[in-house]
C-alpha cells in the first residue's frame, strides 16, 4: 500500500534550558492511503502537539516528516502554507468557519485562494454539498446553522482540495450526540467512498470506534495500537477495555 505520511524519530520540546518539557518523543509513524487513524490518550499525552506537527502548523524539535516521500521540514514558510492549503484538510473542534462568508464561499475558500477556475469550484461545491446534505444551506451564513451543520461545512471545506490527508481535531467535541453520530458517519463514508486518508484526535471512545486503527499516546510516546477487525460495536468494546487496562482509571480518560 502507498504511504501518505511517514515520520521518523519525531520529538518536540517546550521551554528553555533547565526547564525543558518533552511533549512527544520517538514517534515513528506510517500512514497509508485510505486509512482512518485515530489518536487517543489522556490529557497532556501530546495528542494535539502531534496533530499540529503532522499538520505542519507546528514544527518539531527534531525528527523528520515525509508527505508522499517529500520532506516538508525543508520548506519555507510560504511554501508550507501553500502545501498545507493544497494537500491537507482540517476539521477543528470549534468549526473555524468564517462568519463573514456564506456556506458556499466558506467551502470555496481554499480553492479560490489557489485561483482555481470558478466553474470548477462550483462543480466541486455542488458535489460535496450533496454528499454532506448541505444543498439547501449553501446561501446561508454560519450564524444561521446548527453545530452539526457547521461541522459538516467544515468537513466539506476540508475535502474540497482533494487533500492527501484530512486532520480532525476533536471534531465531535462541540456537538450533541446525534450530530456527533451523523458527522462520524459522514467521515466514515468519506473514507470509504473517496478513499480519503483521515487522522482524528479524540477523547471519545465512541468517536474512536469509527476509525480503522487507533494509536494510544501516553507521556508523549506511542503506547499501543489496536486495529479494527470486526464490527464497530465490538471495536468500541475493545477500546473501552483497552483504556481500562492502560491504567490510570477510566475517569482520567474521559
Amino acid at each position, binding site marked *: 500500500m502507498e504511504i501518505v505520511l511517514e515520520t521518523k524519530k519525531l520529538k518536540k520540546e517546550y521551554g528553555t534550558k533547565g526547564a525543558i518539557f518533552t511533549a512527544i518523543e520517538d514517534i515513528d509513524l506510517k500512514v497509508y492511503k485510505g486509512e482512518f487513524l485515530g489518536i487517543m490518550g489522556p490529557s497532556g499525552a501530546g495528542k494535539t502537539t502531534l496533530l499540529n506537527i503532522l499538520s505542519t502548523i507546528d514544527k518539531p524539535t527534531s525528527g523528520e516528516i515525509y508527505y508522499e516521500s517529500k520532506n516538508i521540514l525543508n520548506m519555507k514558510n510560504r511554501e508550507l*502554507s501553500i*502545501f498545507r492549503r493544497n494537500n491537507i484538510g482540517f476539521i477543528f473542534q470549534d468549526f*473555524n468557519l468564517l462568519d*463573514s462568508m456564506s456556506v458556499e464561499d466558506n467551502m470555496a475558500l481554499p480553492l479560490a*485562494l489557489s485561483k482555481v477556475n470558478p466553474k470548477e469550484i462550483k462543480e466541486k461545491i455542488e458535489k460535496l454539498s450533496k454528499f454532506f446534505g448541505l444543498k439547501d444551506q449553501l446561501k446561508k451564513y454560519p450564524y444561521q446553522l446548527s453545530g452539526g451543520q457547521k461541522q459538516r461545512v467544515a468537513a466539506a471545506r476540508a475535502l474540497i482540495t482533494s487533500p492527501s490527508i484530512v486532520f480532525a481535531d476533536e471534531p465531535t467535541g462541540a456537538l450533541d450526540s446525534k450530530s456527533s453520530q451523523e458527522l462520524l458517519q459522514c467521515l466514515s463514508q468519506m473514507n470509504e467512498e473517496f478513499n480519503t486518508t483521515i487522522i482524528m484526535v479524540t477523547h471519545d471512545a465512541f468517536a474512536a470506534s469509527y476509525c480503522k486503527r487507533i494509536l494510544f499516546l501516553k507521556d508523549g510516546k506511542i503506547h499501543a495500537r489496536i486495529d479494527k477487525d470486526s464490527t464497530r460495536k465490538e471495536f468500541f468494546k475493545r477500546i473501552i477495555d483497552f483504556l481500562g487496562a492502560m491504567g490510570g482509571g477510566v475517569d482520567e480518560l474521559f
Partner: protein
Amino acid sequence: MNFFKIAIINFKRNIRTYGLYLMAMVFSVATYYNFVSMRYNPQFLEAKEISAYIEGSSMTASILMIIFLMFFIVYSSNFFLNQRKREIGVYAFMGIDNYKIAFIFASEGLLLGIMSLVIGLMLGILFSKLFMMMLAKVALLNIRIDFFVSKKAILETIILYSIILGITFLKGYLDIIRTNLIDLMNSLKREEELPKVNYFKGIVSIIIIGVAYYIAINYERFGFGTALMITVLLIIWGTYWLFGSFFSMIIRYYINKKSFLYNGTNIISISNIAFRIKDNYRTLTAVAVLVTTCITSFGTVSSLKYYVDENHKIEVPYTVSYISDNQEEIAKVDEIIENSNHKVKLKEKANFLYAPDHEVVIVNLSTFRNIISDLKVKNSENIISKFNLSKDEVGYIERPGVMMSIIAKDDIVLGDKKYNIKIDTKVPFFGRGVPFPCLVVDDDEYEILKSNFSEKQFNGIILDNPENTKDLTFKLVKVLSEESWLYTYFVAGATFYDFTGIVYFLGAFLFLVFVFATGSIIYFKILSESFGDKNKYEILKKLGTTDLEIHESISKQIGMFFILPLVVGIIHSMVAISVLSDIMKCNLIKPTIVSIGVFALMYGIFYVFTRRKYIDIVSTT
C-alpha cells in the same frame, strides 16, 4: 498597590499603542494654542487692517477643533476599550469591582490627556513665533515678530482641554461601568449578521445626489443661498444612503458574482467589507463629507490666490491709463513718458459712452475687438466669436475687481431701448482705470446711443518695467485733471493690499488640521474593528493562507474603506468647485488638481500607517 499606581504602570506599558493618539492630541493642542494666541499677539493687534481676519479665522479654527475632538475622542476611546477588553475582563474575574476598574482605565486616559496637553502647549509655544512669522510673511506685513507667550491663550487652551478631558474621563468611566463581565469575555466572539440590502434606498441615494448636483449647477435659478443650503443637505442625505445601501448593493453583486469572488484574496476582502459595512457606513459618510469640505475649502482658498494672480491682468491691463480727449493733455502725457526711462510697448485709444444711471460704460463692437486682440488676451478669437451681437443684444464685461457675481443679470434699458444681455464674461479690457462694468453693443446701435450719453476717450499705455512707475505717476498727476481717472501700475499696488495671502495661509493650515482629523478618525475606526477580525486571520492561516495573501486581502479591504469616501468626496468637491469657478468667472482646474493631489497624498500616508498597524494587530496572537 493603589489603583492610580496600576493606571500609571499600564500607561507606561501601553505608551506605544498610544502613539498616534498622542500625536493627534499634541498636534491639536499646539494648533489650537496658536490660533488662539494669534488673537492676542500685540504686533498683530497693531496691524489693524488684518485683525478682523485674524479674529474670524481664530474663532472658526476653535469651533472646528472642538467638533473634530468630539469625533476623535469617541472613536479613539472605543478603539482603546476594544483593545483592552480582555484585560478588563481579567481584572473583573479577580474580583475588582467595575467602579475601580473603570477608575483605573479612565485615569489612564486622563493621564494621557494631561501629557498631550502639556507637550502640546510646549510645542505650541515653541513654534508660535515661526507660525506668526510665516503668517506675517504671506500677509506682506512689514512687522517684526517677537517671541511672545500669551497667558490668556494658554489659559483658554487649558480650560477647553480640561473640559474635553473631563468628558472623556466620564465617558470612559461610564462605558466600563455599563459593561458586564460576560460581554467582556465574549466581546470578540460576538456573532455578526450580514446586513440586509435596501434596494430602494440604494437607488434613491443616486437620484438624491443627482438632484443635489443639478441644483448646485443651476444655482442661478434657485437663488444662491437656497441652492447652497438645499445642496448641502441633499448631499449629506444622499451620501448617507449611498454608503448605507447603494454600496451594499454593489458589494452584494460582487459576492454573488463568483467568477470575481473566487479569484485569489477577493473572497476574503469582499466578504469582510460586506460584513463591516453596517458598522462603517456612518463613518464613511462622515469621512466623505469631511473630504468634500477639505478639498472644497482648500480649493477655494487656493483658487482665491490663483484668482488674484490671474485677475491682476484683468485689473491692471495697462501700465498707465487715463480718460481724456484733450489733445494738449495727451501730448503732455506722451512727453513725460518719453522723457522717462520706460519704453512704450502698446498705446491704445478708444471711445466709450458713460451711463451714470446704470453705472456702466458702453463701447461698440469694433472697439471691443480691437482691444481684445491688442491686449493679446488668451483665446481672443474664441471670445470675439462669442460676441456676434444682433441689434437688441449686448455683451456684458464684469467690473474689474469683482470676485464673484451671484446675481443673475437681467435685461438692461439704455436710452429708450431694451437690450438683452447675451453674454456675460470677464476679460481684460479697460482695467480698474474705468471702474464700471462695460457693455458691448453693435456699431450701429452705438451711433444711436451716442446722442443719449456723453462720449469719452480712453487712453491706455503699456510700458516696460511697470514696477518702477512711482515717479512717473507723481509727474502725471500734476499734468492731468481730476476727471481723468488716472490709474497706473503703482496706484494698483498701493491700494491693493494682500489679504488673500492671510486667507490662503490660514485656509491651508486649517486644511492640514482637517486632513489630520479625517485621517485619524478613519484610522481609529478601522483599527478598533481589527480586534474582532483577529480570529478570522488565525483561521485563514491555519487553512494555509500565506502571509502575502493575508497582507493583500487586508490592503484591499482597508484600501476600499479609504478610497471610497475619497472618490465620493472628490466628485462632490469637483461639482462644488465647478460651480465656484462659474461664479468667479475663472478657470479653477489648476488649483483643484493641486488641492486634490495634496489631500490624496496626505490621506495616502494615513492609509499606509493604518494598514501596517492593522497587520500588526491581526498577526500577533
